[in-house]
């Protein structure tokens, strides 16, 4: 079965407003709360329309980031509608055509958009059946439905297409029609291949980088050599006279160039960099003491968990501090956008994770109403959070304004992406705990971090790079805490274990000496690492088996099940000893404490001479509730393991007191093919249970498993990431 999803032909006609969708019906307090994203987008035809041919157009505000979400959402809609996938066309992420579902982030798309589509699909199907029942003069429950055809007991048939004309879906969803019983699923839960792959493996236009419009020109941006520098001068006349240059755009400290051909724009950018004189700028903290420098800054502190009980006097206490560096999203494709400014309005083709929040913040930067900016999502390279995708959209819009009528394609250069996209924040975790016998009786956890979201859409400012540089700048939104249980820097800081006494404090460091924002898992990667490492430290202290100690403190049967499963997969044996070079370790988390359950066992080898850690084998057991697409879920688990292994062994963004020095793949190496672990995934399906977000679930458990395996192998504990050769050699010397 090959689903047909909407693949936009990249033509000038793109972006025409499609009349007839309901984007009204926003939630008010007087209304009943509806599940998932249905609550904020309540009209049925905002989600689903059926045309005269019986084809369903299904709209989602969530977007394809390489995680396969659009295929999974199509499965859910087709399942409830009783339509084959080939008759479902998806439209995603368009400020004129789809529901506003905010950002596509936090492993929430199946839970929010999937829930909306499940309920809307069930309701649309029931309306079609009711319509057919009226037409036939029979009871609705006497009708059967298959592949968009409704059949009566006497053999009369009517198709969705024949019914569609007389049925208005412009009505508020009730959310009251019961979706299908999971036991009857034929599309959900099956391995449907990604609808976008045939185009992507054959070079059909698939990405925002591939958008080509008539008269399109190419833009490039020149950014300051360091944070906060002021553009004093540049050779406008010489650059403007270079071959193909259409416009040199300067607005305060924002500097860009537009040229007929891409290589001309790149050459003009190079010349601009050479001629631009910048003054001033902000010094950065000492990279050798970055964590101390960050902890000395003003914080907002919040106790996020506090459970009191007496700590036995004879318990053994232990404390440790863990540190995680700044990490880059390090997308393979530098961020790209195409913008066209015509008759006072912009159309922007963007790879943003949230076209509506982007539109909102672009209105703030450009000082125009939202109706003047139409943002259309087109996939880009994987972003893994808030990279340069939104920034480049405003860059393109600013350049487009200088060349009215002509679409401007801007792709950042590699060094723009590495130096200017936000980083995942550096973090410090300080733990103190006590154990008596094999019971953990006290747990104190403090986490210090900058914010993990400075995305567009945050209130109180504009979170787009160029907005801060233009001559009439708009300040960024102030950082704020994200409430538990999801959390930000404190995501997964509250342990999942049953401890009698615990005290967990989130210290949000307000000033941001280095630009940071959402990187896949936010704080969870570091918090799961610290928590799970420290549990192992306590196990070692108590002479307990790490798997047994975890199970002894877990009452949630689904948490226990993934740990038991992964232990079986890896043939875990209590009491196995590392041999100085080889070892294995376990890590577990329930992502965000409310999404998928994942347990990981990693096997590692340490080269004591070079200090290199190899991870040959990783086992994963995961429970994401009702599985929508088992292969898509497994792919997310595998990818998370490998990306996390790369973060853990190799990655750290670099800088000096003067400037950021991460600018290419030589200065920011990532894991390569020969270094990639084999990954074995087993999924525990829970038919009928709520589907749980899974796109970020394996990263925290993976770093913990590798770190614990290092201790198992060598008897040493590393508490600073990454686990690079220098640290390994120092620990073993």
């Amino acid at each position, binding site marked *: 079965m090959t689903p047909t999803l909407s693949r936009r032909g990249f033509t000038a006609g793109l972006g025409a407003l499609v009349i007839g969708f309901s984007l009204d019906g926003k939630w008010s307090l007087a209304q009943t709360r509806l599940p998932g994203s249905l609550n904020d987008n309540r009209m049925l035809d905002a989600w689903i329309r059926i045309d005269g041919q019986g084809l369903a157009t299904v709209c989602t505000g969530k977007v394809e980031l390489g995680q396969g979400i659009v295929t999974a959402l199509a499965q859910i809609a087709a399942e409830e509608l009783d339509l084959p996938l080939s008759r479902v066309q998806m439209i995603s992420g368009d400020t004129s055509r789809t529901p506003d579902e905010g950002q596509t982030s936090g492993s929430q798309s199946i839970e929010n958009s999937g829930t909306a589509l499940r309920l809307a699909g069930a309701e649309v199907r029931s309306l079609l059946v009711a319509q057919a029942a009226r037409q036939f003069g029979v009871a609705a429950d006497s009708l059967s439905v298959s592949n968009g055809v409704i059949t009566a007991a006497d053999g009369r048939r009517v198709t969705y297409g024949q019914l569609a004309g007389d049925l208005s879906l412009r009505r508020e969803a009730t959310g009251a029609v019961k979706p299908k019983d999971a036991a009857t699923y034929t599309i959900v839960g099956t391995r449907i291949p*990604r609808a976008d792959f045939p185009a992507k493996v054959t070079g059909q236009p*698939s990405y925002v980088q591939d958008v080509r419009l008539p008269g399109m020109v190419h833009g490039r941006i020149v950014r300051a050599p360091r944070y906060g520098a002021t553009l004093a001068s540049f050779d406008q006349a010489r650059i403007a006279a270079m071959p193909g240059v259409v416009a040199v755009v300067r607005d305060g400290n924002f500097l860009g160039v537009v040229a007929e051909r891409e290589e001309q724009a790149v050459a003009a950018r190079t010349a601009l960099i050479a001629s631009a004189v910048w003054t001033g700028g902000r010094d950065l903290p000492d990279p050798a003491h970055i964590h101390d420098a960050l902890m000395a800054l003003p914080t907002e502190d919040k106790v996020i968990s506090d459970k009191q009980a007496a700590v036995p006097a004879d318990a053994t206490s232990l404390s440790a501090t863990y540190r995680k560096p700044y990490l880059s999203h390090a997308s*393979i494709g530098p961020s790209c956008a195409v913008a066209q400014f015509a008759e006072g309005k912009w159309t922007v083709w963007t790879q943003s994770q949230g076209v509506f929040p982007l539109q909102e913040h672009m209105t703030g930067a450009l000082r125009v109403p939202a109706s003047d900016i139409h943002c259309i999502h087109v996939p880009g*390279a994987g972003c893994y959070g808030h990279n340069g995708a939104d920034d480049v959209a405003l860059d393109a819009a600013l350049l487009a304004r200088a060349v009215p009528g002509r679409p401007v394609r801007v792709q950042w250069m*590699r060094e723009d992406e590495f130096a200017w996209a936000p980083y995942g924040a550096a973090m410090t975790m300080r733990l103190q705990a006590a154990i008596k016998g094999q019971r953990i009786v006290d747990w104190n956890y403090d986490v210090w971090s900058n914010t993990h979201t400075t995305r567009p859409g945050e209130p109180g400012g504009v979170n787009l790079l160029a907005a801060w540089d233009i001559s009439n700048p708009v300040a960024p939104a102030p950082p704020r805490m994200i409430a538990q249980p999801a959390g930000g820097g404190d995501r997964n800081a509250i342990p999942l274990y049953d401890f009698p006494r615990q005290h967990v404090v989130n210290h949000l460091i307000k000033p941001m000496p280095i630009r940071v924002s959402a990187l896949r898992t936010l704080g969870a990667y570091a918090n799961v690492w610290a928590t799970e490492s420290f549990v192992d430290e306590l196990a070692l202290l108590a002479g307990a088996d790490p798997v047994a100690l975890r199970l002894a403190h877990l009452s949630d049967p689904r948490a226990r099940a993934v740990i038991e499963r992964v232990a079986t997969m890896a043939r875990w044996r209590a009491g196995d000893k590392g041999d100085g070079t080889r070892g294995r370790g376990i890590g577990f988390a329930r992502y965000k404490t409310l999404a998928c359950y994942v347990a990981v066992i990693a096997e590692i080898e340490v080269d004591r001479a070079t200090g290199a850690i190899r991870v040959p084998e990783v086992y994963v057991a995961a429970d994401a509730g009702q599985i929508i697409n088992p292969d898509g879920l497994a*792919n997310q688990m595998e990818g998370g393991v*490998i990306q996390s292994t790369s973060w853990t062994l190799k990655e750290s963004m670099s800088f000096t007191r003067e400037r950021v020095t991460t600018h290419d793949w030589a200065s920011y190496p990532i894991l*390569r*093919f020969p270094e990639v672990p*084999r990954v074995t995934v087993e999924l525990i399906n829970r038919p009928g249970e709520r589907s749980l977000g899974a796109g970020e679930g394996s990263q925290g458990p993976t770093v913990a498993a590798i770190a614990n395996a290092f201790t198992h192998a060598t008897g040493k504990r590393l508490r600073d990431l990454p686990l690079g050769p220098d640290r390994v050699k120092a620990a073993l010397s």
Partner: protein
Amino acid sequence: MAIDLTVNGAVHSVPAEPQTPLLYVLRNDLEMNGPKFGCGLAQCGACTVLVNGVATRSCVVPAGSVGRAAIVTLEGLGTPEHLHPLQRAFIEEQAAQCGYCTNGMIMTAKALLDAKPDPSDAEIRTALAGNLCRCGSHNRVVRAVLRAAAAMKAAP
């Protein structure tokens, strides 16, 4: 200034300066989407094309230096209707997430299989060591190359 290039069996004359990176000519003049801009530094492999059968980083090769050499891009291997065994294998193994690096994976694997039709798992990993993937699809890519090799052996 015009450059003549032989791409996927056809000769094209493009109005570009000789020092223009081949990648930009392929993407912007010939409107191909297979080769991608990733770094412009020959570090990541997203832009890989075959030049006389050799996997080549088109982002650093001046278009004017290619001469009459035969250039093959992802588009030259197959179409959605007539997939090359490597393209088919990548779909069957679902060997991508975002797919941005996939061009480089397939083109590098094509050069490998042309030279060595029956590579081992380790040989594939070594051949692809210069191609970066950020989504973590590596193991699926290796499986896809093995699958394609088997398919090409069965039906050469």
